[in-house]
């Protein structure tokens, strides 16, 4: 069961949003419930504190109040870390990217076109539902890189291999559609990761599950996306 919260200072617009949500949940038979719609962010926070379920939050950014949508979202994220936050706003003073970065906002709906906004609200509900079921049904192991106060998590299944960089204190993570170069050492990685990862070479730490084939003659490992990494003779029997 997902709980839905709406915070919007304009009563007319709030009604429109609520109606769309209500209809979608009813028609599609989603396991969700609209718990609260309000203009007061403090009231919303109280409700979040009381709630034990994961929530979906539709927030306006400009709330005509000392707390704006961004601060509200940050508070909510603290109370309900796995929640889904969607911003509904008229002005795009801050772009989508900042919201995504700061509070991992799921989407960003502009209300200057009511019809389109309705469609997007529906999409967001579906999307949240999908992600929610995925999270609860399957427990992914993830590797988390921490830098400053920022955390980047990568699913084990997406990781292809780690590689040393030219800098002794930096390592490169190769994943399916991303590459991250971060401060760290192979030694630290080896102890942090599980058995799925094998140190196949002095400068490579490969994910066993993403190997496509091994060319033992030339000592090259081919991975599922076509990338290659090297293998040393000594480590051959490990794979």
């Amino acid at each position, binding site marked *: 069961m997902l709980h839905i919260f709406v915070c919007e200072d304009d009563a007319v617009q709030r009604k429109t949003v609520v109606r769309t949500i209500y209809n979608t949940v009813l028609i599609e038979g989603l396991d969700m419930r609209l718990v609260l719609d309000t203009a007061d962010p403090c009231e919303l926070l109280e409700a979040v504190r009381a709630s034990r379920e994961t929530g979906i939050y539709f927030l306006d950014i400009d709330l005509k109040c000392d707390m704006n949508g961004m601060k509200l979202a940050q508070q909510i994220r603290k109370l309900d870390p796995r929640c889904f936050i969607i911003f509904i706003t008229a002005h795009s003073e801050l772009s989508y*990217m900042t919201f995504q970065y700061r509070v991992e906002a799921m989407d960003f709906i502009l209300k200057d076109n009511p019809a389109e906004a309705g469609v997007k609200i529906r999409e967001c509900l579906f999307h949240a539902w999908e992600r929610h079921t995925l999270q609860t049904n399957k427990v992914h192991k993830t590797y988390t890189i921490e*830098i*400053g*106060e920022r955390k980047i998590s990568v699913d084990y299944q997406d990781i292809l291999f780690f590689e040393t960089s030219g*800098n002794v204190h930096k390592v490169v993570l190769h994943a399916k559609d*991303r590459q991250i*170069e971060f*401060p760290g050492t192979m030694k630290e990685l080896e102890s942090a990761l599980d058995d799925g990862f094998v140190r196949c070479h002095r400068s490579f730490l490969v994910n066993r599950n993403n190997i496509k084939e091994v060319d033992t003659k030339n000592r090259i490992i081919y991975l599922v996306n076509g*990338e290659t990494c090297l293998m040393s003779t000594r480590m051959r029997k490990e794979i």
Partner: protein
Amino acid sequence: MNPYLSLLFPFFLVAITIRNVWPQKMGLKAFAALYALMVCAALPIPLLTFKQYGLFCVLLAVCLYGLITDRDTRPENICMTFFGLVFAIILDNVSSGLRSLLPFEIPGENPYAAFCDAALRVILTYAVTLLCGKAIRRKLLNRKGLWQIQQVWYLIDVALLLLFILYFLHTGVRADMVSAAGLIYYNAVFFAGYLLVAVFLALMMQRARHEKMRTETRQRAFQDLQEYTRSLEAMYDGLRSFKHDYINILSSLSGYIENGDMEKLRGFFEEKILPTKNLITQGDYKLNQLGNIAVLEIKSLLSAKMIYAHEMGIDVTIDIPDHITCFFVDTVDLARILGIFLDNAVEAALETAHPEVGLNIIRNPDTVAVVISNSLQDSGLALHKLNRQGFTTKAGHQGIGLANAQRLIRSYENILWETTVQDGCFTQYMEIVRGKE
């Protein structure tokens, strides 16, 4: 005559010469100080076997004097010291030559005649050097053209110093009747000196080059900033004209309302007012947000690239919500990295149907995050090949841009760098952590 006393007069002449060719006006006090310094430095001369070394001592003393006083003309001071010394010696030779041409002998024992001779020499030296000094100041020390470059003066200084060292050593060696060991010793001294001079020269060149690069960057930053200002002004003008239109629109609206003409009002609204929505959103690419960056070089670079992207018809989004004063890495390096990323973003975006480029800089308590994203034509781009030197998607390019950026980023331990390709969107993300110092 006392050897110490016999030194006083020639040094007085030398001091006068130097005073008159000195780059700055030298008062009586400064002159006295200079003279005293020279005499002090000359004190050991009578004790030395080779008088030349003593002269060298004096020369060094005067150079030191030039380095300490009148600091803004240091290299000129030293140069003029050398010049003054040579000039004094030449004048002395000339005056001796002239004296030997005289039809009568100057009686050496007559104190009156000796005094006249000395006075005459002082006056002659003073007059000639004063004239020459004025000419030199006008021609060379005017700080125009080549002469305004300090390095040129240092070069001249070094050349003169070398010449003097050579001269002194040469005469010294000759007087020594050279033993093999002595020769080696002099050579060693000479080459050590030469090495020092060479190192000094190299350092000077290095500094000059650095200075030049800095000026160039400044210049470019300045030009970019001018462009930025122009764009802001254009945006402001657009806004002003809209304000003007807005009043007109309001008055026509009130006209329709007064008449109660709902049909015409609807038509007017749909035809005239709704399209103004585009007017506001279009062209408003939040260039003003760049004002939040207090690092001049970065701001100018970003503005130049973003203005260019906008002019190419790309939908540009800039979002810099916080004031940023420091990026925790070398500004020149960061500018190079960002330049490469933005150039690539613009080029890749232009290949798509709806080109978009986003720039996002966010400040956190301990980090600064820079996100550059662009729309991407999905052509099965292999991410892992991207950073390799020589990899390029463009014909006629070398593919060194990203490889360079990678090298630069790698040299910093406090940068996390993530490259992502997702849903037709290519993102370069950098998180720069405050250094530990």
